[in-house]
């Protein structure tokens, strides 16, 4: 492939590009989808192509193609050059530059002990059909659905710095849900665990058929539960619920491109400013977030980002203080930083890489003995929330409202009965400032997100979040109109 990538890079350099890269992406994806007792979909996709990005005269251009040959490489590079020249008609001030980065040459393969593409589709279909059948046999369950998805992605990245990277990763993304109906009530309960960079061993580990009855019974239980009362309460949130909360209220607001206003037309901006790094109190002293794009099994652990920058682990928030932002080689120089911290990714060969949320997690509390039960014991009246449900946040990432998948009323320091239709609503910094305890490391769990939408045209990205259960004081709950 070196001949091919050289052809693209040489064409870009000959046109005067200050920087260029070419990124070849080969994908193989396998999906099995069951709804009720019907195998709705079983397929396999083979997809490949490449994109060329050039920086010319302070403006960026990008072009993609599916034709992998030297001529096509040069032609596509030329299209990217023309796109950059068109972009220069409305120039950036100051002109765009890229942060410096040494040349890297590397070949890496991500974790995958048992090749999911070697497992028969029959076995995958039978697993899902068995799980759905178990759910449908629970009285009160109206419908059940599940899927198993596997994606293998090989990225070959070469750039005019001299980098040449050959990177392969395998993602497994399962799902299972039951929907129960009781009169005019209908409630769902889902597999809570998310995705992982792993192979079939992950599917065996999570044992969807083994949990199917429990989740189905919990869906029925939710139908019969009382509605969540309205008021101000303490919350204890499990790691899967916290995954979405941190994604929306910490991950997105700390993307430097959003802070710079580049997402203003679609995903919005951020209440965070570049000057807030090192000064902004984001949460209580119990709150420490770490970016870790080296996390084993993390769906954002790609070895190098699409800028060709090694993926890294660094603190984002320490003891409640904002200490970093996620950035790219394009955004870092905008705020005077010399190097990118490796948070630039694209969801396919045909899209321009952009600033993305990395793997991001809440550090466990300092006391490994502090359990979720200890957190609950410290609540006189509150909610314990598991899993993910409704989620919504304003375009500056301040006002949010989240739900969950399973809700318990806490009274007198213990879970007393299930509830349904609970929501909690807060302003981002007020919420994280109210965190007074995080359980210890033994209760820390990861959650791989595979559906983070951002950018125009929309790109869908992966990242893993993680947390131990955490407690929040005095949060408004049950604000939804029911």
């Amino acid at each position, binding site marked *: 492939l070196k001949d091919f990538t050289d052809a693209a890079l040489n064409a870009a350099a000959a046109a005067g590009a200050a920087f260029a890269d070419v990124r070849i992406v*080969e994908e193989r994806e396998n999906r099995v989808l069951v709804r009720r007792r*019907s*195998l709705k*979909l*079983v*397929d*396999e*996709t*083979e*997809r*490949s*192509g490449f*994109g060329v990005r050039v920086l010319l005269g302070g*403006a960026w*251009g*990008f*072009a*993609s*193609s*599916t034709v*992998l*040959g030297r001529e096509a490489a040069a032609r596509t590079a030329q299209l990217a050059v023309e*796109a*950059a020249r*068109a*972009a220069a*008609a*409305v*120039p*950036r*001030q100051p002109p765009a530059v890229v942060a410096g980065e040494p040349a890297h040459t590397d070949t890496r393969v991500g974790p995958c002990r048992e090749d999911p593409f070697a497992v028969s*589709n029959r076995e995958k279909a039978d697993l899902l059909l068995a799980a759905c059948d178990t759910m449908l046999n629970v009285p009160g369950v*109206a419908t059940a659905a599940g899927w198993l998805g596997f994606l293998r992605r090989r990225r070959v990245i070469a750039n005019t710095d001299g980098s040449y990277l050959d990177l392969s990763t395998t993602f497994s993304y399962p799902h299972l849900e039951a*929907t129960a109906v009781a009169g005019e*009530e*209908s409630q*769902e309960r889902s597999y809570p665990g998310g995705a992982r960079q792993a192979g079939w061993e992950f599917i065996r580990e999570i044992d969807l058929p083994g949990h199917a009855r429990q989740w189905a019974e919990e869906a029925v239980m939710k139908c019969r539960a009382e509605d969540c009362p309205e008021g101000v309460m303490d919350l204890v949130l499990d790691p899967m619920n916290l995954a979405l909360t941190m994604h929306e209220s910490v991950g997105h607001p700390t993307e430097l491109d959003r802070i710079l206003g*580049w997402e*203003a*037309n679609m995903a*919005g901006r951020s209440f965070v400013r570049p000057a807030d790094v090192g000064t902004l109190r984001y949460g209580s002293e119990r709150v420490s977030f770490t970016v870790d794009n080296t996390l084993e099994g993390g769906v954002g652990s790609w070895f190098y980002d699409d800028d060709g920058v090694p993926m890294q682990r660094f603190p984002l928030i320490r003891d409640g203080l904002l200490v970093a932002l996620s950035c790219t080689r394009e955004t870092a120089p905008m705020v005077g930083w010399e190097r990118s911290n490796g948070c630039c990714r694209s969801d396919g060969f*045909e*899209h*321009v890489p952009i600033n993305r949320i990395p793997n991001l997690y809440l550090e466990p509390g300092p006391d490994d003995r502090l359990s979720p039960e200890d957190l609950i014991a410290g609540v006189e009246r509150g909610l314990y929330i598991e899993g993910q449900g*409704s*989620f*919504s946040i*304003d*375009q*500056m990432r*301040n006002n949010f*409202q989240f739900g969950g998948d399973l809700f318990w009323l806490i009274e007198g320091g213990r879970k007393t009965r299930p509830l349904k239709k609970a*929501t909690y*609503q807060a302003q981002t910094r007020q919420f994280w400032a109210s965190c007074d305890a995080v359980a210890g490391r033994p209760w820390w769990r990861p959650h791989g997100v595979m559906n983070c939408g951002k950018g*125009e*045209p929309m790109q869908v990205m992966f990242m893993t979040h993680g947390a131990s259960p955490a407690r929040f004081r005095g949060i*408004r709950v049950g604000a*939804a*109109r*029911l």
Partner: protein
Amino acid sequence: MKGNRRRAQGGKEGAMKPAEEVRALLERVLARVRAPRALVQYAFQRGLATRFGENAILQSSGGEEEFLRLEVAYGRRHGSSIVNRTDKAAVGRLVDRAEEIAASSPEDPEYLPPPGPQAYPGVPPRWFESTARLSPVEAAGTIREAVKAARDAGYRSSGLFEAGAGARALATSAGLFAFDRSSSVGYSTTLHGPAGSGYAGRDTEEADRLEARSVTRSALETARAAQNPQGIEPGDYTVVFEPQAVADLLSFLFWNLDARDADEGTTAFAGRLGEAMFSETVRLATRIDDPELPAPPYGQDGLPMRETVWVERGVVRRLRHDRYWAERKGTEPDPGLYPLFMDGEDRPLADLVAQVERGLLVKRLWYIRYVDRRELLLTGLTRDGLFRIEGGRVAGPVQNLRFNESPVVFLRNAAALSRSERVGPVKVPGVLSERFTFSSGTESV
């Protein structure tokens, strides 16, 4: 990767295949299939996207790609595969893989064989050379004007100019062949002043209809009016939703028009067929005759598109049936939902505002999600301009609010409609509705 190199040497890039060539390609695929039943689909898309922010172009991109998707079946055992190549080797892998998957699959009790030949309706044109010829240069020209307008006002502009041209086709082992090509261009922009913003956007098939200047002007007018919003208490308000906000809110209602989900009791439409769920001003229909929002000739599995009335005078007349559920229920399948039309009334939006003594004018909604799907209770926020209405006039900007409300309630309480406008794949009017519930506020602008 080696196969890809072979494709490159013999391949042809940059030309959209005509219908005859696509038909020949799909026939070659079907000829190679040994399974007794097959449905093969083709798609080609060429596109450009130029993105801008902070008064400068940030991304200028383009590319093209074609796909083949094949589903084959032995009895009720089916399997599918997809490739983004059309050369002989890729077709071989496509067929072998789909057949291998199908041969080992368990029986699907809901599988239906692919349809045979269909008669397609005449639909307004969806393909325009003027759109297909758009380049990053034209995109940059439009953006340059937007940026100048923003700079002249001391504002910052951001947005997207996107254009594309494509073709799709479908063929089955039962003798069906369908082909359709279309073009599209969309432009949207957000203008930010020091303390407030405005948004506008437009999508069309024909570049001449885009009228990008008027889009920019609309966003600028809203942004100017939206500066320095005042605080406002959440609560129940009489609202006037502009068509953009109506489309935002009703998208979730449209997605819930599925007959099977309703029959199984999981959506707000469960047991409501024939019932007056909404104000009698409400009529929802799929139409195929509007040149401003043209329909494709065919929908699901190659079935011909047709006009379908879903809601008439507020009464739910029909829910969407896929082929399997239609067969179970003894009715015709519904080929598609979009383009979807909510009829309006022949008056401008200002007439709705004039009817409101005290209320809110809503321009756009953001981050809408279910709170409870069965009740179709949604949450989300206003964005890019929220205005107080007093005495029948727009009295000034207010801070954004979070709503917790159902589009069912919104349409039940609809008191007046304005003329319909296209917003993406739907055409909806402005709506005056009573008692819309906002639950909290935000200072975010």
